């Protein structure tokens, strides 16, 4: 295999969204030779789709806010299943990361006295999300992209990593292919940071782009890394439901933060019927109090429209099932009756645009139709809270692909902050690890030869269409491992996944290897099937309902399951699922929950 294109780095970062870019910037700043690989063009990663904001307890709007409150909100939002130390580090470091983005060029909306403005969001006690209208993710990725370009980091665009390589137990690089030419490329690296984002494309209704195929989850799992919390998938309560072609596209929680309320077809604000005991003491129980809260956050309690996402998604699901949904299978989200046209267009310009252009709906005059959409994977690579190191030496993970930070349910706004807080830590620790190694670890030539041959197999003749296989997987997961789950349906899903895996060996793509999207999908299918199986197996194991995992057959939270992570491991062809105890929170932090 002497002729394969080869690049050599200390640190290879896979994925160029917020986490990957931040990791690459940090690794490079510490003197590590750093390479960055991404499946799309630079600046197109799913981070651009983040709308509402970045959560950081800066206290610019409410001086009562601090990291302890943010930490508490995050843990309660995650139903106490979060890795407490990650949640603590996140709450403590997020404000500095926001200021750093500002220094690098991000222009957040301002308060009257010229500081960074912060907005309300679900599950956050105080207005906490630094934002730019409703395009905060674009601001963040462009800022990091331009900063990385000026640091001279080498970026390999439209390049898909297909395998991680190991030298004995430790990471030694990655093998991928150029989407444009179809040729293989070898990255030799002392350390690898996975920052590949999510896996929404295993579901039929999703806010994710084509890239969210769970590659990083799958690559890490295949390399032997422990995966945790895979059963927890966040269904964002508000995706578009009509027209059909845009079903699933995200409608920012900022609509509700800025005054939008959810209504069923009778015009009832149904969220008042779904306030769980855990949040009852701080949630308004009458419309009058909720309405007062928009202007008086001290004397009124917050509206139930801003309960954590898992609660709102389940409520919408129940309303639709009870026959109180819209003809298109959603509920109404109304901001027009509370806010002026000018206010809506200034605060939510891209929502205005999106509905006007794609649905012909003027959100300054009419309500939107919304329903749940697969949005975010809480589960992922098990990492050390301090260093973002996985259980495989030399392999690091940050952002959505890492597990633990968000527990069973992520709060809105905590993702963008997660990206930069743990992206930075992953880059830093990967660089330190790599710079501490003496030589470049060796790569397994046999594995490279095997992969180079086997990725071409879809051209050799079979009868299965990759698009059909993908659609069948999405429909199966949506139906059987979606918002509401039961044991029998999930077991059916496992049978279907096994069938699809068998049929994938017979996949056939047409044309040649240059920029062949059908072929790329055929190769991504292996990853999607692996993560779909991991999600399903973990979901069968967790016999309770909690956060982004709701069981019809076990509708309540269980004390025992509240003490464990479900861990998925792959060894050879065998996948095992075990329960392991959560890390124990120290007493001084436990006190924060005793009010």
């Amino acid at each position: 295999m002497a002729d394969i294109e080869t690049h050599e780095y200390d640190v290879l970062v896979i994925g160029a969204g917020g986490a990957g870019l931040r990791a690459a910037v940090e690794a490079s700043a510490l003197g590590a030779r750093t390479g960055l690989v991404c499946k799309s063009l630079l600046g197109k990663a799913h981070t651009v789709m983040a709308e509402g904001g970045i959560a950081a307890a800066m206290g610019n709007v409410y001086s009562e806010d601090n990291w302890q409150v943010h930490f508490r909100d995050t843990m309660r939002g995650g139903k106490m299943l979060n890795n407490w130390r990650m949640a603590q580090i996140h709450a403590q470091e997020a404000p500095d990361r926001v200021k750093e983005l500002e220094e690098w060029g991000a222009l957040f909306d301002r308060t009257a006295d010229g500081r960074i403005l912060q907005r309300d969001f679900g599950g956050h006690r105080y207005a906490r999300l630094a934002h730019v209208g409703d395009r905060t993710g674009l601001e963040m990725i462009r800022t990091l992209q331009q900063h990385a370009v000026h640091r001279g980091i080498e970026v390999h665009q439209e390049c898909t990593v297909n395998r991680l390589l190991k030298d004995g137990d430790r990471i030694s690089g990655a093998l991928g292919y150029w989407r444009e030419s179809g040729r293989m490329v070898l990255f030799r690296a002392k350390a690898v940071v996975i920052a590949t984002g999510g896996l929404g494309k295993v579901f039929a209704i999703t806010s994710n782009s084509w890239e969210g195929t769970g590659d990083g989850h799958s690559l890490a799992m295949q390399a032997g890394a422990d995966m945790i919390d895979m059963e927890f998938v966040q269904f964002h309560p508000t995706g578009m439901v009509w027209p059909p072609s845009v079903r699933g596209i995200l409608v920012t929680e900022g609509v509700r933060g800025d005054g939008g309320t959810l209504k069923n077809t009778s015009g009832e604000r149904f969220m008042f019927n779904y306030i769980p005991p855990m949040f009852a003491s701080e949630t308004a129980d009458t419309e009058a109090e909720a309405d007062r809260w928009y202007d008086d956050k001290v004397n009124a309690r917050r509206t139930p429209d801003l309960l954590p996402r898992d609660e709102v998604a389940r409520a919408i699901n129940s309303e639709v099932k009870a026959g109180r949904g819209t003809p298109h299978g959603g509920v109404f989200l109304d901001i027009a009756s509370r806010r002026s046209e000018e206010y809506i267009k200034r605060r939510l310009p891209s929502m205005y645009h999106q509905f006007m252009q794609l649905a012909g709906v003027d959100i300054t005059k009419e309500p939107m139709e919304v329903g749940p959409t697969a949005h975010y994977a809480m589960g992922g690579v098990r990492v050390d809270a301090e260093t973002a190191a996985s259980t495989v030496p030399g392999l690091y993970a940050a952002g959505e692909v890492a597990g633990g930070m968000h527990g069973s349910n992520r709060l809105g706004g905590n993702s963008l902050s997660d990206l930069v807080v743990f992206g930075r830590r992953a880059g830093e620790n990967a660089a330190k690890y790599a710079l501490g190694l003496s030589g470049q670890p060796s790569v397994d030539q046999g594995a490279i030869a095997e992969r180079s041959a086997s990725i071409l197999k879809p051209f050799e003749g079979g009868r299965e269409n990759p698009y059909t296989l993908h659609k069948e997987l999405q429909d199966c997961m949506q139906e059987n491992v979606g918002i509401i789950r039961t044991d029998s349906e999930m077991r059916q899903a496992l049978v279907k996944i096994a069938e699809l895996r068998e049929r994938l060996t017979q996949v056939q793509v047409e044309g040649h290897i240059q920029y062949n999207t059908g072929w790329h999908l055929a190769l991504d299918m292996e990853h999607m099937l692996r993560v779909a199986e991991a999600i399903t197996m973990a979901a069968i194991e967790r016999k309770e309902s909690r956060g982004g995992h709701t069981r019809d057959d076990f509708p309540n939270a269980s004390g025992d399951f509240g003490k464990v992570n479900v861990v998925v491991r792959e060894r050879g062809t065998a996948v095992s699922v075990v329960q392991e105890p959560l890390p124990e929170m120290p007493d001084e932090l436990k006190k924060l929950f005793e009010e």
Partner: protein
Amino acid sequence: MPKAHLKVWRGDDSGDYVEYDVEYEEGMVVLDVVHRLQATQAGDLAVRWNCKAGKCGSCSAEINGKPKLQCMTRMGTFVDGETITIAPLKTFPIIRDLVTDVSWNYRVAETMPELKLSGPDASGHRRMQQIDIDREQEFRKCIECYICQDVCHVIRDHPENQGNFAGPRFFVQLANVAMHPLDQNPKSATVAHGFGLDYCNITKCCTEVCPEGIHITDNAIIPLKERRVDEYYDPIRAIGRKLFGKK
């Protein structure tokens, strides 16, 4: 279900249009129809896309001769039976089908000046008034779809200008640096030199096609040209430069 009659560019520079009939439903956009074409008739059709909501700027193409985002062009905007021609962006070399080589833009991006902000005040904040950043926020809405670059005749009709001309997308980025209230770059270094601003004769083609509605010509290019005139062609300043040797 109605059928759309499509003419889609297939292959590289030496390729040609291929005609297809594809079923579509109410509310679909062009990108949906292209995806259906991929899934049913042309599995290897190359097309870039990501967000499908007009936020990432990946799916730019020339639809019936006009550069647009495929994901924001609704099928309802065509009359029944109209042939829909989908071609790759003309200004950039074709890689395959609807995918073009836009790497030139990324090379220009490397030459852009970097913001250098003054430090925070004693309270730890960088204070800026909203009114002072409204225009820069408009510039920062850019999704890098490169439709403005595609339509700009300075490079569309004269590829030889690519070495001397950054293009509208990057004039917007230069304007962002030039007008940032806390930027400490010497203005002449950021604004004036080397990016070919003078090639632009403000025909506003870029402004007309911008899917984000950025007023590229009025709010970025013209103010940059004015500053350049102020700094370099102001006769009094020119004498000053001669007398005092200032650049």
